[in-house]
């Protein structure tokens, strides 16, 4: 039997920060959207806002343009700062494609 050993070529990933903790409930929470303004986000995210408001008692869902929109802006530190200071409990990011 011939054995061949070789390197995994995929490199090493370094996890430097944890994902945000999940919420225990949506009731009474404040939810925001971060939109890249593409791929029908202008239709889909408002629909999701309507659904959340209809399904979850006491929820507050911010308008989809509450934070900067577009691929060039949503990854900026300034956007992250605005999200943090807005007091939202969670954000939904869309639409990736």
């Amino acid at each position: 039997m011939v054995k061949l050993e070789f390197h995994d070529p995929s490199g090493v990933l370094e996890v430097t920060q944890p994902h945000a903790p999940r919420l225990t409930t949506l009731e009474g929470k404040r939810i925001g959207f971060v939109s890249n303004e593409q791929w029908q986000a202008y239709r889909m995210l408002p629909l999701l806002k309507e659904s959340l408001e209809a399904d979850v008692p006491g929820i507050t869902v911010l308008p989809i343009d509450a934070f900067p929109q577009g691929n060039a802006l949503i990854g900026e530190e300034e956007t992250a700062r605005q999200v943090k200071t807005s007091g939202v409990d969670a954000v939904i990011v869309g639409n990736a494609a």
Partner: protein
Amino acid sequence: MKNAVAGVGLAPDAAMVTFPVNMFLPGSDIAPLTQRRREVYDGLLKWKSEFAQPAASAKMLAVEGATYEQALVNANNLLLANLWGDGLPLWPATKERVDWILQGATVPRAHVLGKFPPRGGITTVETCAIALAMAGGRPEYLPVLVAAVDACLAAEGFDQLQATSGGPFPAVIVNGPIAKQIRLNSGFGLLGPDPQRPAGASIGRALRLLQQNVGGALPGVGTMAIFGTMRYTNAVFAEDEDNLPPEWQTHATQRHGFARGTNSVSVVFASGVTNVRRRGAKKETPEEDALNGMWRMADFMRAPNLAALAGWESGTPGIMMIAPIVARRMAELGWTQQSIRQFLWENSRIPMDQMRRAGAPAWIEIDTNPVTRDSINLDPWPVCQKPDNIVLVVAGGGHPTHSYWLQAHSPTVPGRIIRTPETFERLLTDADRDLGCGDDVCRA
């Protein structure tokens, strides 16, 4: 999406709800979103990452076979099954092979070049050597690959270039004596295979493997490149410095200020390749031949390549490659690199009514660069802010009939000096021994 979150240091998974692409098209039925809205809610409430932190260095894989050939087949199958191959046969990156490649290194194997976006795989010199080993490379190619990777990692928007549907590919232009020393093609067939000058294929294939395996640019998953042109080997070639007309500068000098004789790479992200039959027919004077050819080149450039908006101010609309014999004839007629660029720039401008009918102004209006947005007031609209943005390279076979236009999606054109190890001369001697001399490729 997994690449994107991994690239910012999160575990490479995320709470996602995915739908078929049809729902993301204009006028689509978005009712499935309502039907599956609970999955979105669950993403906020219940989702949990399943990623386990891996070991700090590349792990070793193993396969067995009754014969060496069967083990080799099994190794290739394993690489493909793990989505680390490109469909062509690979050399498994054994310890022996990687150590051999690393003879071309100038820094320790663990030296970190950066995180390869968008996935964010940590890219060391060893990571490059592993890819080069798989791609059939040799130690003397490693300095070029490392410089090219370094340039790519420094490129503005490289994460988006990796992922975008337009499918740009790195075109690596090499200047300096190293090009001939390692048998990098600058002549006939320089963008394709050449058994006498195989360096470009291996270096470019290794770069592509890094883009896919470390950077996460897996077709249809991590890169939405719809067509994926030139993505087996990218494009790695040399400028034909020996045949530059007198007084003409190398690309590296013009673009990056590197002195002639300096080993360097320059990376343009190209999104297409187009042949231009520039030579005339029937009766023509040398002046007509030159001018007609210039018009044809400009005509090919005069297109609303909206991906090139990303480099409108500081990048490039593309590489115009002209054969050395053409460059020489044009220089004899008084053309300079500057006057050629000026002609191409002026005569590739697009009347705004043509831009409007193509819907191009909308893309200009939403560009993030205010300088680019302001260009909407220009009529005719130039394909880049200034003539110097056009990359003009002298390369190709000794034949006057064609030029080559590589349109770009290149926000910047990063350049890097290539560093070679003290043992480089020995590596070149080994290459002469191993690869033979062909017509003219040995140094002695």
